[in-house]
Structure formats: structure tokens, C-alpha cells
């Protein structure tokens, strides 16, 4: 058996162990089946929920919220990060405040933002920006600061145009740092969107659906949703690793 099939086998085996423990606990009736559903029940629910309109609606809403919040964070974070990376004066000016905001558990802003921006999308968006932007700023900035000085000097040496210097040297130099920060920012954005959906249950969303299922004692639905989120996370990780291998293979 070569090492990759061995790895895959072990990986699947790990899942089987966890599943077996679940089945045993279920069969021993340690918990009320109302609280701990069987894997089969959850599996059925998982398939069934894709036929329900309000799940699809929630899924789409959450997805759109994540994409919008993440994109805005990325654009603002990268631009500010590049600027403060280049101009030390601006870095010194903003460093303290960026570090301070980053140190606050971002969700703490939420009640305040509800007062400022009202119950709705805007306050949700603002919380995810407050959390994601500082992370992207900091990584991008260090990317500019710590990227290879001599390589950046090549531009000077060879009289490259500003455009060529930027596209051929600076962007590739900084992009691995940006990429790392985007990975972190995206997972935090997903968390924030889900949590805020749980708090204000005004419109459809996966977080909202989780809370509703809890109210209605639909634990199978809750399990199905959690497993879905786990799968999405795995998928994203896979995509990121693929991008990394494809674009940053030279690292």
C-alpha cells in the first residue's frame, strides 16, 4: 500500500470510529433520541433539507452575505495594507489603532452597531468588516515590509517602469501574505455571519435556521446543518490548498 492510499484509508477510518461511537451512544440510549438523533435520521434530514425552499433561501442568503462581507474586507484591507506598508509614517500613525481593534473580540461591537446602523444587514456587515479588515491590513503590510529588499531594488537597478515593478515584482512578492490573511479572514467572516444571523432572526440564513431548529427541538436538522457547515469548511480548505499549490508553488 503506498503512503497516499494508506493516508486516505486512515482518514476514512477516523470518520468510521467517530460514527461508531455516535451509533453506540445512540443505541445505549444514554441520551433521549429527541436530543441525540441517529446518524441515519440525520442523513435523511441532510438529503431532505435540500428539497425545502426555506433552507435553499437561507443557504443562498448566508452565502451572499459571506461573499459580500469578505469581498469588501479584502478590497479595503489590501489597499490600506499596501499603503501603510509603503509609507512608514502612515503605519506608525495607524498601527496602534489597528492592533487595538484587532484585539477586541469583534462580536462585542454588535450590540453597539445595532444601535448605530439598525437591526439588519448593515450592522452585520460592519461587524465582519471590523473583524476581517485589521487582519488583512496587518498581513499585507508585513508582506510589503518583509518582502525581499533586493528583489524590490531590481526595479531601481533595471529602470523598470512603475507598472512593471508593481505587477512583476511587488504583487507576486506580497501575494502569499495577502493570501494567508484572506484565508483567516474568510473563516472569521463565516463565523461572524452565522453568529449574527443567530442573534437577529429577522431574515433567512443558516444561523437563523439553526436557532429555529433548536426552538422546535429539531435536533436532526441542527446536526444536518452543522455537518453541512463542516463540509463547506473542508471544501474551502481544499480550494485554498489547490490555489496555493497552483499559484504559490514557488514558495
Amino acid at each position: 500500500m503506498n503512503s497516499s492510499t494508506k493516508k486516505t484509508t486512515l482518514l476514512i477510518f477516523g470518520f468510521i470510529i467517530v460514527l461508531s461511537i455516535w451509533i453506540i451512544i445512540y443505541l445505549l440510549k444514554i441520551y433521549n433520541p429527541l436530543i441525540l438523533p441517529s446518524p441515519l435520521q440525520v442523513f435523511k434530514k441532510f438529503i431532505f433539507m435540500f428539497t425545502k425552499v426555506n433552507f435553499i433561501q437561507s443557504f443562498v442568503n448566508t452565502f451572499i452575505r459571506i461573499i459580500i462581507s469578505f469581498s469588501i474586507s479584502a478590497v479595503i484591507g489590501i489597499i490600506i495594507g499596501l499603503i501603510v506598508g509603503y509609507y512608514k509614517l502612515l503605519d506608525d500613525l495607524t498601527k496602534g489603532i489597528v492592533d487595538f481593534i484587532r484585539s477586541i473580540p469583534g462580536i462585542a461591537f454588535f450590540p453597539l452597531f445595532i444601535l448605530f446602523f439598525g437591526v439588519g444587514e448593515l450592522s452585520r456587515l460592519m461587524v465582519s468588516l471590523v473583524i476581517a479588515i485589521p487582519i488583512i491590513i496587518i498581513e499585507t503590510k508585513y508582506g510589503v515590509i518583509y518582502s525581499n529588499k533586493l528583489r524590490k531594488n531590481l526595479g531601481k537597478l533595471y529602470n523598470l517602469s512603475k507598472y512593471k515593478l508593481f505587477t512583476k515584482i511587488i504583487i507576486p512578492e506580497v501575494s502569499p501574505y495577502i493570501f494567508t490573511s484572506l484565508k483567516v479572514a474568510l473563516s472569521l467572516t463565516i463565523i461572524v455571519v452565522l453568529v449574527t444571523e443567530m442573534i437577529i432572526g429577522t431574515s433567512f440564513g443558516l444561523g437563523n435556521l439553526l436557532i429555529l431548529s433548536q426552538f422546535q427541538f429539531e435536533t436532526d436538522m441542527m446536526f444536518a446543518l452543522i455537518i453541512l457547515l463542516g463540509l463547506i469548511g473542508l471544501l474551502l480548505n481544499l480550494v485554498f490548498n489547490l490555489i496555493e499549490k497552483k499559484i504559490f508553488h514557488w514558495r
Partner: protein
Amino acid sequence: MIEKPSISIKNYNKSYSNNNLFLDLNLDFKKGEFVCILGPNGCGKTTLLKSIGGLISHEGLIRMQSSNISYVSQDPNEMILPWLDINANLIFPLKKEQADLSLLSELLEITQLNDYKSNYPYQLSGGMAQILLVARSLMNKSDIILLDEPFKSLDFEMSRRIQKMILKLWQSYKPTMIMVSHSVEEAISLADKIIVLSQKPASIKKVIEINLSRSRNPNSSDFLKIKKAILNEFFN
């Protein structure tokens, strides 16, 4: 009329944490000259070369006749772009229409980089990466080429081939070449003029003009005489 020097260094000062590497160095390089700088370890040869290339700051004045400079650093990783393949690394300083494609294929041939041209720098050995840097400086046809121990990690055969290529290109369009080296033999084989630096703060200990015809035979008596004279400089 006296021709303006290609590079003119006036009152050059450089220190690292209160350690003076150079105090008021004055030095001119003529246009088209092939100069080799020799000196003990840590005397500041690389620092001087980097200052000339404008890659580090310094005090004093360094005036250049041309802004088309190439620099081949001792550590190729500093100057190779790891995200570009070998071919792209070779021509990246040039505009597309400027690239001399016959020179490119000749360089790829001589340097044996042909087999690697769509590979990436991390797939090259240290020696091949060094060769890539030298080839890029030649490809760029710079007016001033700065070489910092370009043959350090090359085997004898490759080193000889690259030296031949450097000489050929130098003779074809006469750029100003400044090479830092630890090898007296290398210096005598290539240079018109050898500058021997002293311990820090470095000053010019001796300038030796080499009037041997090329290509030079390291076993000829004239060659050995010069070699002896230079080695004497190091040991007294």
C-alpha cells in the same frame, strides 16, 4: 580630451554600527574597462559593489555615466524572481521587443539552461541559479555589469564556459565590468586591471594593470609573475 569615467566614486564612506568599512574612498572606472577587486574577507568588497549598484545607502558621491546597470549578487536567491520560470527570469528586465532572441538561445545553450527553461528557480541547484543571474546580466546588455563572485559555486568546466561567454560579450560591446573575487587566478584571467583592497577601513592597496593578450594561459610565465606579485600584496 580625457574621457569621462564610467563610474566615479568620490569621498565614499560606509560604516556598519560604528565600524568604518570605507573612509573617503576615491576611485574611477573607465568606460569599457574590466576591473577585478580583490581583498581580504570582510573588507567591504560586496558593500562597495552594492553601493555602486544603488542597492544600499552610503555617504559620498557615486556618479555613473549610464543607468543601465546589472548586478549579479553572491546569493542568487536575492535577485532571482522565484515566481517566474527560467526563461521569464532571463528576459524580465527587457521590453519584449528589446530582447535579442539569438543571444537568448546562445546563452541558454552555453549555460545548459536550455533543459530547464520552463522550470522554476527553486528547481535549480545553487550553481545553476548563479549561472542564471550571470546570463541575465549578459542578456540585458547593460552598460555597467557588477559581478559579485559570480563563479563561486560553479564547477571548473562551467566556470570556464561562463568566463568565455562573459569575455565574448564584453569584447563585443565593451561594457564596464567590475567583478569582486577571491580567486587571484580568475582575476588575472579576466581583468584589465586588478584593485587590491586593504583590511578595513579599506583603502586601495595596489592597482595592477594587466597587459596580457587574451585568452590567457594560467601556466605562462607572465601570468605566474603577476600572480606572485598579487599574492605578495596579501602576505605583507
